[in-house]
């Protein structure tokens, strides 16, 4: 696929990132290799896929992985009822394993899509190891083999993105076929841009100071680090209700009691500094 993204393009669909990510995405598109994005929850992995699909006007085909996902749910299934009906209707029906009896699941859909598409395999680390093996043929050879039917070759008009939260080590075979990128929490620069995009009245310097404050909160040795969405919501609320203390609405940002206590402690320390 002859497409190239730039930071500006992504910003036009309100996705803010740095140059590294853009370079990797371009390389993956150019080499026609799947892109494996790993990172903590809430850093915009899935949103990147959505942004790219809306930027190039691609059809987004999404496969949400979960424990116990298998071939029937992910690749294809035979429409058994239809087969039964047709054999009752027409006794001479010969080939029951025809394309018209095939129910296409996301993977097959993505392979055979006529329109340019973006295939998103979300949270691959939640699936079982056996399922990974199933993906290898699709990712490397761009084809899928159905025993009763034969091999279906895929079209080339596809960008593939895999996301993972890293709860489990992915197999080497899968990682070898992908281009890897680790998406960490956003830098102050990126986060302030996101804030400015989401909150209309906020000025650049205000956004920057909020963003650096959040990066400070993230460094606080917390149990659950606030995600990008949480921080944006928190800033939005505080920005619109300036008179209230940030401690009252801490539940938007930190969702753990000991984390909240840690935050309050830090604020108290800072207040003491002022009084001195």
């Amino acid at each position, binding site marked *: 696929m002859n497409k190239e993204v730039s930071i500006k393009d992504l910003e036009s669909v309100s996705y803010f990132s740095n140059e590294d990510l853009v370079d990797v995405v371009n390389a993956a598109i150019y080499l026609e290799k799947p892109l494996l994005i*790993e990172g903590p929850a809430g850093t915009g992995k899935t949103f990147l896929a959505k942004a790219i699909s809306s930027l190039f006007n691609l059809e987004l085909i999404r496969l949400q992985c979960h424990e116990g996902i298998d071939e029937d749910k992910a690749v294809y299934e035979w429409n058994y009822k239809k087969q039964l009906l047709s054999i009752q209707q027409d006794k001479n029906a010969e080939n029951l394993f025809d394309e018209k009896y095939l129910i296409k699941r996301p993977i097959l859909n993505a392979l055979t899509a006529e329109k340019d598409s973006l295939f998103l395999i979300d949270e691959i680390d939640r699936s079982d190891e056996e399922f990974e093996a199933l993906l290898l043929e699709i990712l490397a050879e761009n084809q899928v083999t159905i025993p009763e039917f034969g091999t279906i070759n895929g079209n080339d008009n596809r960008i593939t993105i895999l996301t993972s939260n890293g709860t489990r080590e992915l197999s080497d075979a899968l990682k070898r076929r992908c281009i890897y990128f680790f998406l960490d929490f956003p830098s102050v620069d990126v986060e302030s841009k996101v804030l400015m995009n989401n909150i209309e009245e906020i000025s650049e310097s205000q956004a920057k100071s909020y963003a650096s404050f959040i990066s400070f909160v993230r460094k606080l040795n917390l149990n659950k680090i606030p995600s990008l969405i949480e921080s944006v919501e928190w800033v939005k609320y505080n920005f619109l209700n300036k008179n209230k203390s940030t401690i009252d609405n801490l539940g938007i940002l930190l969702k753990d009691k000991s984390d909240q206590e840690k935050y309050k402690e830090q604020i108290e320390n800072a207040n003491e500094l002022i009084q001195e």
Partner: protein
Amino acid sequence: MQMSSFKNEIVAFSQFCKEQQFFISIDKLQTYFGYIESKKIESFEEKIRYLYFLIPKDKDEKDKIKHLISEYFNFKFEDNTTFDFNFFNEYDLNENFQDVLIDGESRDIDFSKIAIEIIQDFENLDFSRPVSNAYWLNQIKKTKAYEDMVSLFDVQFDDTFKNIINNLNRENFSNFLDLKLLELLKEERNKTRDAYQPSELDNKDQLNELDYLYTNSEERKKLLEQTYSLGNKLAIKFKKQIKFSNKGNLNLRKTIRKSIQSGGVLQNIIYKPKNKKKPKLIILCDISGSMALYSLFGLTLLYGMVSRFNSIKSFVFIDGITEVTKDIKKLKKTEIESFLKNWNNFVKQDGHSDYSRTFEELMDEVKKNNANYKCLIVIGDARNNYRDIDEELINEISKSFKNIYWLNPERFKYWNTGDSLIRKFDRITNNTSEVRNYNQMKAFVNSIDFKRDLK
């Protein structure tokens, strides 16, 4: 012509990586060259950047190749995530601040200029002395010029929020300045290199290969986080294997019920779950004095496993076992270190590790519960303080557990010296490994194959 010389260089680099225990696969290299050639990337910097993007397969490899590239090509990656500033108007009141800015508009600070000034101010810099650059940095940090520089941020705000950010700015500023100073120092000292060869080329500064014992609190925090997720991964590995071996007899009722969908044809066959005792796992961690910091990492691994599932039991021991499964589940990730501080709660006798008593108590526990314990993971150095251990007991352990894995944080060359009993246990374990750093721990976790071992 140019391309081929570049290729040779990359091949030499991959050879260099091989020596450093990092293996670049050929198809990755092919992809890389293909991309470089067809995109016609000329500049050396870009080429190296893509080397960093396209070769590694996961985060650990990414860190490693970054380190190797910076060592081999002497190339520095721009780190645009760590240091961020936020400017307040109050800073402008400070006259000194105007001097350090490249220009007032864009508010970029010229760190190299500041660094040069500070170093020039520092007179008694003797480069021939065989001390590390960090030593000189510390000396420089004590000087007045340095302190003056950092005092730019001695502004008091009435706002809590601004104060916190100001502190953050100060921290970032000094971090950045330190880096620049170190860079300059290295350069200066390289000029007078013949006098003295520094030992800093030793590539032990990579976090994942750093001995747990020599970590500072910052590094420890990172490593403990990684260790926790390793524990999680190990627990999931154990759990997954149970699920798959759990297919039992035919569930006729459900199968018939389901067959109605397909007009009475038994298309989907449904099985009952096997009504067998689930295999359970015990993890045992030595927290005696000889284990030092390793017990913290051991306990974090244990915590990572236990916090995930119920069927994993955990004990800590010194001279007798204490079950901590319930207590440790209540803890938060950040409270493990303080948990270890209540060390004396776990002392049963004299506070010196006693493996024979420990295992006797463990066997009692296993018999009492009569559960199907199959796996045992022990984290300990097997130093028994010159107490003896009964051969019978070891045989009994071997009989009651199908698989035993042992993580020994002691250096391999000291095994079986003095009061170490690891040889006796080695006989009955599936896997005994030296685990002193993160990489070793990861290799250990990856090497465990419950599916194979539990058959």
